[in-house]
């Protein structure tokens, strides 16, 4: 093994090395690694132990505060918000006597209130965290105790690094533990990582080889090795380190040896391990990064207006200050009036100083202009919005019993402004439930017609009402290539309708129950009707084999075709990582256990147990020690290996191979016997748990051909074949799938032929390049070439049908080749630093010169409702980009199926081989698009460029023709270049939808970033897999689909939805509502505060700009907080400008959010002007009423406050679109609360509230009729312009949204009722015919008939109303269904 310390630093610069050396003297290990020793070491050794200081214990503490630190820490955090600092500053300013405006303690009240509300919220959150921490900390686990020499039960929080923990089946792992012993004879341990990443399939973990070899039970007391590993990090997929034994030997540690905290032990009775990382240093907790904080677009816009408010505030204060300075200046020094009070020292302030003081005073008085409660209110409203989104039953998926999750709490309104959607395809648009559709083996296509029919049946039950498409008619002609086109058409018609395929509810339920136990297994996927031809051939093949085996004939006598078929199914069955489970004992693997004490049952067993020559599961183990022949050799062998002299071991290896081959010859017959003993659950009940759904689909497909996977251990796979019985393949290596190689392989020893076979399964593009080049002169080679080209043909056809294609290939390795490769591979495996890289290289070495067996076509079905959703989102003005890793043909076909592309759409395809071509292509396309399709074709015959260019620009039929853009990954890479990106965007902007195929995760995020930054557009990315994470994080709004591909996308997302179709309601309804509610609320907030503050400003003209306020300080301070806050909160939470049904049926309304119709910059100023006007009215009506009277200051201020409150609430009433019980009651409650507080406050204490003394004011006023009269007349006059504007606009120029509201006027029932009533009246109003007709004539309108009806009734109603008679003609044009092209398209 390589000395780990040497290879530790990947690229350590020279200086750093020097530094490191210095460090080494003191704390050698602390630089980059962590050293873990057993805690059970003898006291004498304890002195050696490194200080425990930096190592976290296992106590979970997610709370932010302690009882003591809460106040300072929380306050400190709150003061990070600038607004809070501002308000505290103002409150403190009040304590300065020369400038104070209010009772200082009282001025602190609102700030303290706001801080307290936030603090209480934080406290509550922290407390619930504390409780859950406590619960987790007090979970129990078995920890080895030195004194009692056994495992005793301890709390999780008491577990420390270096402790030995014993875990039983189904227990949750308390910390990151290095697996040292397992009850499993192979040293395996299965864990379920659902808590970590949501993946429900089991994962294998492996005991360190050396400990596995121990004959006795693992004894923690004897564990003296030292473990060196990485510092804690959050990479779940990586763990590196090594263990140093007392004798100096080292073993590498990998992630397969580590049990992660939060996972559950499954299928393993007992495991023991040493704690490596505890508590907050565990990978699970390091990965837990709380909710994300984003600032929404609306909030950004709002902040600008807040700054404007600050500016207005300063201007007002300056104005007042100058006014006051002049006012003071007009009195000569000697003739000061009595009301100009000198300072405490008896001297009068100079005008300038007075002005300066007054400026500060005015800031205090006018502080209300910067709404203190705005931020808190917005937060409250958003929490409520999130609550409602959570609660929406339409966003709840019964099948998976999951609902929408909002992970980011403060960007709900961004959902209403999205312009671009970037979507992943697999698992997002499609179900990621793979269904085996057809396959081709050695050039012959098996179309699986019966299977296709059966699949069609699944969608039958629910689709009776659309029994129009002739299903399955042409399916039987699948063999002939010429029928492909028609089949394709049918297929497409099916898949577009397939959204209801999930069948009855009961079936869905059943599926959901099933899915809790096994991932990826709906009945559809499991039941596969085999193709009779192929089945026949398989049987034939099996018969041959049996005969051959009984006659000891070599396998090579099998015809090449049959041999290919045989290998094909073997590959389908074993070339995967599927784990077999049985439903009777959930999570308990059906497997053969080799009990250590039981007698040897088989020869194979014998070999297994007494020759440690198991070249077992490559990626799962560090098999260095397994090469040694006996236990005595064990240490020797590994020491040999670690000193990198592998030659001798390799020699031994070859011997071993030869030996075990002999032994294996009888393997299968022995297995049969074992099978009889086992005779456990029936085959049909076996369940397969796969890491990817494709694998499961293939295994189920193979099972349909009686080639059943019955068991998988780390080093062997058992499959059951007809006639042959159980065959056990020794798995030598598994080269896992990765996205760069795009393939996976297993290296097995074939039990019949004893050859070492490599089975490879992967994307056709890569496999086809790796095939053994065959000479065309040799007939066999010719045949093979023919097969290859045929297969390629079929592959293309599969792709056209939107199937996912996989190629299956095989390679027979000679022992020399294998040994040679093994040497490199073992080196790669034992390497610590560049292990991944080396293993990758190693895989490349063995995956070549393949022999093509066949190919499969797997259908990835569209998710329910995807085409409708996409169509609706298109109508809503959203541009949808699909970024997929699939090949172009597949992607295009899926795009057609899900209505991303239309058949009447012109598709621009960009496939370029070089940046130059790409540039030219882009230029041409742009030119073509710009010239509005006037040029017929693009001249692309330039000689030296190889252009895979399929663009066409036919003469445009209409100016409105839509464009679609298809671009592949390579071209995309060129187009994303700095020089081309602008042109690419220009082109993409004109396209309704864009399809990027073969794109990498990085490209995905680059595209999103480009659009977000360059087009300044609001982007939403939706995806379900780990490859979408970067895209989701880059987009303004990231949506994760909580699908079967794990939770990584969800973890990174702001919102997680169960299905793609939920996006429709999330955006069109909730997004729209959230945006319009919040926009209206923010605008209203600004208006409200400006209007209230302006009242004070006007008063300054009558009090010598002295900063005096006629409104009592209590009202002034609590007005925002108490009296006027509730209605606006209710409106902000519950108001609906358009009902949900209309928003869904008329998606065009979504554009209002995109265009920011509810909150445009000028609206702020309009509101300010309105506030100005209203405040003038509200101030001067009382002013003139009480002019020249004995009104005292608060007797004037109280009516003004009352009027302002009425005006503000009535203003909200004008703006409120939907009145529910809550709206009514909140308004009434606010007014009553004001009167109640005023009456109580004014009666409570005659002397208590200096400097104001409002005793009995309200009581007195309420006995004065003038008070009531002004309170009625002023709000009416104040609101008249706004009301008038709203009325005129609603009557003459109704917005689309208002029209939408009218649609909703009548619910379905009364619709018909009104219609029947109107039939009598129809004759009296002939005009309405022309009115109603357009909607009847429009057959394309797919709107609920009720809406058409309601439209008609509305028409009649308006005709009847003489007052609005004039408006009909106007409405006619605006009405969506009179010329429905706009709204209903």
């Amino acid at each position, binding site marked *: 093994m390589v000395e780990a310390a040497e290879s530790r630093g990947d690229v350590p610069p020279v200086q750093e090395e020097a530094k490191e050396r210095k460090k080494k003297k003191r704390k050698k290990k602390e630089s980059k690694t962590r050293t873990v020793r057993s805690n059970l070491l003898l006291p004498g050794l304890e002195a050696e132990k490194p200080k425990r200081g930096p190592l976290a214990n296992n106590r979970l503490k997610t709370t932010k505060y302690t009882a003591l630190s809460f106040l300072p820490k929380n306050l400190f955090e709150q003061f990070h918000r600038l607004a809070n600092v501002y308000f505290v500053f103002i409150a403190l300013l009040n304590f300065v006597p020369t400038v104070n405006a209010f009772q200082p303690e009282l001025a602190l009240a609102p700030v303290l209130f706001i801080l307290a509300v936030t603090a209480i919220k934080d406290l509550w959150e922290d407390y619930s965290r504390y409780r859950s921490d406590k619960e987790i900390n007090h979970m129990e686990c078995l920890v080895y105790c030195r004194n009692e020499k056994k495992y005793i039960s301890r709390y999780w929080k008491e577990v420390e690094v270096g402790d030995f923990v014993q875990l039983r089946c189904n227990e949750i792992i308390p910390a990151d533990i290095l697996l040292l012993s397992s009850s499993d004879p192979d040293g395996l341990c299965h864990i379920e990582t659902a*808590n970590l990443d949501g993946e429900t399939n089991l994962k294998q973990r492996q005991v360190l080889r050396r400990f596995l070899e121990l004959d006795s039970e693992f004894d923690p007391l004897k564990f003296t090795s030292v473990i060196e590993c990485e510092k804690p990090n959050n990479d779940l997929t990586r763990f590196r380190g090594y263990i140093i034994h007392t004798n100096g030997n080292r073993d590498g540690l990998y992630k397969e040896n580590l049990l992660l905290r939060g996972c559950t032990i499954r299928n393993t009775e007992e495991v023991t391990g040493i704690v490596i990382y505890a508590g907050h240093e565990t990978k699970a907790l390091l990965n837990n990064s709380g909710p994300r904080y984003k600032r929404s677009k609306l909030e950004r816009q709002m902040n600008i207006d807040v700054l404007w408010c600050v500016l207005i505030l300063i201007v007002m204060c300056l104005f007042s200050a100058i006014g006051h300075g002049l006012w003071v200046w007009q009195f000569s020094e000697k003739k000061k009036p009595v*009301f100009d009070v000198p300072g405490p020292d008896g001297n009068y302030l100079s005008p300038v100083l007075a002005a300066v003081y007054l400026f500060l005073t005015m800031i205090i008085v006018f502080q209300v202009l910067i709404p203190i409660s705005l931020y808190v209110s917005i937060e409250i409203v958003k929490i409520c919005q999130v609550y409602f989104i959570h609660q929406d039953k339409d966003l709840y998926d019964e099948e998976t019993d999951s609902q929408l999750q909002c992970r980011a709490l403060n960007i709900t309104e961004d959902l209403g402004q999205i312009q671009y959607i970037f979507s992943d395809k697999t698992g997002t648009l499609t179900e990621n439930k793979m269904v085996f559709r057809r396959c081709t083996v050695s050039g012959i296509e098996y179309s699986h017609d019966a299977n296709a029919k059966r699949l069609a049946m699944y969608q039958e039950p629910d689709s009776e009402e659309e029994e129009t498409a002739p299903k399955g008619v042409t399916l039987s002609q699948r063999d002939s290539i010429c029928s492909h086109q028609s089949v394709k058409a049918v297929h497409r018609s099916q898949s577009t309708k397939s959204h209801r395929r999930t069948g009855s509810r009961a079936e869905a339920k059943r599926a959901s129950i099933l899915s809790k136990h096994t991932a990826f297994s709906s009945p559809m996927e499991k039941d596969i009707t085999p193709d009779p031809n192929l089945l026949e051939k398989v049987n034939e093949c099996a018969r041959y084999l049996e005969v051959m085996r009984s006659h000891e004939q070599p396998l090579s006598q099998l015809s090449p075709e049959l041999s290919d078929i045989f290998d094909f199914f073997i590959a389908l069955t074993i070339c995967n990582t599927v784990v077999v489970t049985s439903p009777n004992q959930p999570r308990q693997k059906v497997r053969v256990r080799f009990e250590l004490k039981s007698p040897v049952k088989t020869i194979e067993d014998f070999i297994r147990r007494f020759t440690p020559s198991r070249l077992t599961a490559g990626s799962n183990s560090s098999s260095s020690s397994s090469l040694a022949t006996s236990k005595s050799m064990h240490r020797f062998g590994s020491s040999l290996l670690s000193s990198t002299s592998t030659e001798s071991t390799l020699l031994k290896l070859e011997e071993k191979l030869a030996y075990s081959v002999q032994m294996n010859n009888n393997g299968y017959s022995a297995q049969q016997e074992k099978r009889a003993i086992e005779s456990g659950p029936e085959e049909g009940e076996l369940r397969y748990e796969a890491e990817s759904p494709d694998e499961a689909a293939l295994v189920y497909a193979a099972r349909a051909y009686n080639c059943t996977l019955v068991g998988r251990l780390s080093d062997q796979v058992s499959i059951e074949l007809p006639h042959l019985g159980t065959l056990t393949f020794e798995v030598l290596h598994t080269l896992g799938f990765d996205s760069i190689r795009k393939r996976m392989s297993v290296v097995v020893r074939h039990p019949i032929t004893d050859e070492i076979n490599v089975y490879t399964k992967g994307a056709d593009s890569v496999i086809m390049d790796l095939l053994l080049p065959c000479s065309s002169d040799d007939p066999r080679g010719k045949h093979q070439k023919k097969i290859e080209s045929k297969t390629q043909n079929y592959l293309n056809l599969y792709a056209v049908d939107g199937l996912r294609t996989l190629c299956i290939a095989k390679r027979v390795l000679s022992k020399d080749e294998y040994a040679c490769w093994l040497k490199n591979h073992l080196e790669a495996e034992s390497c610590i630093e560049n292990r991944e890289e080396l293993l990758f290289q190693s895989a490349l070495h063995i995956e070549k010169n393949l022999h093509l067996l066949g190919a499969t076509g797997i259908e990835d079905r569209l998710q329910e409702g995807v085409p409708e959703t996409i169509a609706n989102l298109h109508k809503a003005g959203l541009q949808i980009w699909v970024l997929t890793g699939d090949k172009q043909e597949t992607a295009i076909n899926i795009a057609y199926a899900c209505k991303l592309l239309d058949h009447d759409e012109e598709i621009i395809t960009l496939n370029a081989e070089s940046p130059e071509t790409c540039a030219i292509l882009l230029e041409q396309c742009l030119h073509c698009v710009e010239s509005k399709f006037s040029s017929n074709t693009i001249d692309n015959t330039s000689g030296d460029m190889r252009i895979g260019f399929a663009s066409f620009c036919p003469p445009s039929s209409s100016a409105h023709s839509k464009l679609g853009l298809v671009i592949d990954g390579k071209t995309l890479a060129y187009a994303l270049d700095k020089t081309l990106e602008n042109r690419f965007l220009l082109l993409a902007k004109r396209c309704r939808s864009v399809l990027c195929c073969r794109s990498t995760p990085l490209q995905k995020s680059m595209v999103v970033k480009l659009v977000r930054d360059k087009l300044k557009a609001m982007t939403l990315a939706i995806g379900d897999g780990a490859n979408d994470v970067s895209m989701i994080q880059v987009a303004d709004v990231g949506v994760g689909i909580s699908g079967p591909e794990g939770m990584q996308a969800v973890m990174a997302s702001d919102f997680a939805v169960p299905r793609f179709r939920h996006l429709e309601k999330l955006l069109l309804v909730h997004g729209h509502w959230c945006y319009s509610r919040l926009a209206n609320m923010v605008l209203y907030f600004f208006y409200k505060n400006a209007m209230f503050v302006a009242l004070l400003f006007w008063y300054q003209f009558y009090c010598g700009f002295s900063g005096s306020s006629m409104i009592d300080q209590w009202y002034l301070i609590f007005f925002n907080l108490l009296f006027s806050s509730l209605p606006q909160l209710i409106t902000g939470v519950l108001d609906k400008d358009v009902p949900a049904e209309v928003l869904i049926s008329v998606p065009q309304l979504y554009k209002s959010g995109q265009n920011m119709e509810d909150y445009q910059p000028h609206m702020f100023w309009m509101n300010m002007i309105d506030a100005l006007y209203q405040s003038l009215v509200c101030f001067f009506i009382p002013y003139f009423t009480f002019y020249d009277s004995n*009104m005292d200051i608060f007797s004037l201020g109280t009516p003004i406050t009352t009027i302002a409150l009425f005006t503000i609430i009535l203003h909200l009433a004008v703006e409120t679109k939907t009145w529910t019980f809550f709206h009514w009651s909140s308004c009434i409650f606010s007014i009553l609360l004001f009167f109640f507080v005023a009456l109580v406050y004014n009666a409570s204490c005659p002397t208590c509230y200096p400097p104001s003394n409002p005793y009995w004011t309200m009581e007195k006023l309420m006995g004065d009729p003038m008070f009531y009269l002004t309170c009625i007349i002023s709000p*009416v006059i104040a609101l008249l312009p706004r009301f008038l504007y709203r009325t005129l606009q609603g009557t003459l120029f109704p917005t689309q949204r208002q029209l939408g509201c009218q649609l909703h006027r009548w619910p379905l029932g009364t619709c018909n009722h009104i219609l029947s009533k109107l039939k009598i009246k129809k004759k009296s109003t002939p005009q309405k015919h022309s009115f109603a007709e357009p909607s009847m004539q429009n057959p394309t309108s797919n709107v609920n008939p009720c809406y058409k009806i309601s439209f008609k009734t509305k028409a009649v109603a308006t005709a009847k109303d003489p007052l609005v008679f004039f408006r009909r003609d106007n409405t006619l044009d605006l009405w969506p269904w009179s010329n429905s092209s706009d709204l209903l398209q």
Partner: protein
Amino acid sequence: MAAARRERGRPDRTAFTQQRLPAWQPLLSAGIALPLFFTLGLAGLAVGLGLHFSSGTIRELELDYTGALGSNQDCARCTNASATSGPCLCTLHFELAEPFPGPVCLYYQLSNYYQNHRRYGVSRDDLQLSGDPWGLRHPAEECWPYRRDPRGQAVAPCGAVANSLFNDTFALHRLVNGSFMPVPLDSRGISWWTDSNVKFRNPELVNGSLATAFWGTSKPPNWPCAAYLLDAGNPNNTGFVNEDFIVWMRTAALPTFRKLYRRVHQGNFSAGLPRGTYRLDINYSYPVLPFKGTKKKTKKHPDLVRMAELVVHNVIREYYVPNRLLLS
């Protein structure tokens, strides 16, 4: 996490959580607005007409007694009098062409007098005025610079508002049979009941004497006499509970304001002031300050209650700034 999500199960299906509460969705259009508009308009019209006719009986007479320089008013001489020369008596004659129905109220009005100035308005101590024995001798901070006299004695009542108490006095006479008969002016009930009975209290009497109770305090600098000497003969109207003082202490909202001075509802005048000639005797002492203005006297009758008011108007409209003189 995943398991917990499953346990949460399906959302509630109440109308509230699904945002389907029964609601009214008005669209502001002419159909709704016009009826509303007309209804409101008619209601407003009715109220307006009622107010208009009821106000027809309101009588108001304003008398300016500022005595601005150059005017031929009797009070003009008082304006010229220096601040230290003490009270100056002047008279005003006026005719009532028609009777003023009772009760007639006599107001004095000041213009351009910023009682609502912030620092002026807060310069008072309600605790002291409520008769609190501790508060009496410990005036609030706000009272500065009228908190303690140079000897350190607490000023009672403290503060700028009290210090600037309006102290012109008026007497009304009616010409009956060639001689002027005094019109009885009632000084009771001119302030709010709650003010004179709850908010303003005299300190507890010491040995039955209010003066002793005030012992250790000093009068406000501008006052000619201590608080307990205001209307000294009347124990219910002296000290802090003096109604003129209470009225003054209710600081006015606007720079032009009226304050109720007296009511005429006694004796022969219980029905109001009959038509005839009247004489107003003014003890012109308030503008002892280094500024001057105009004074006015008005009769007014504003309310639905049909209370006639006579407003004495003391307009301090503009201060003497050399070469600038404004008349009311």
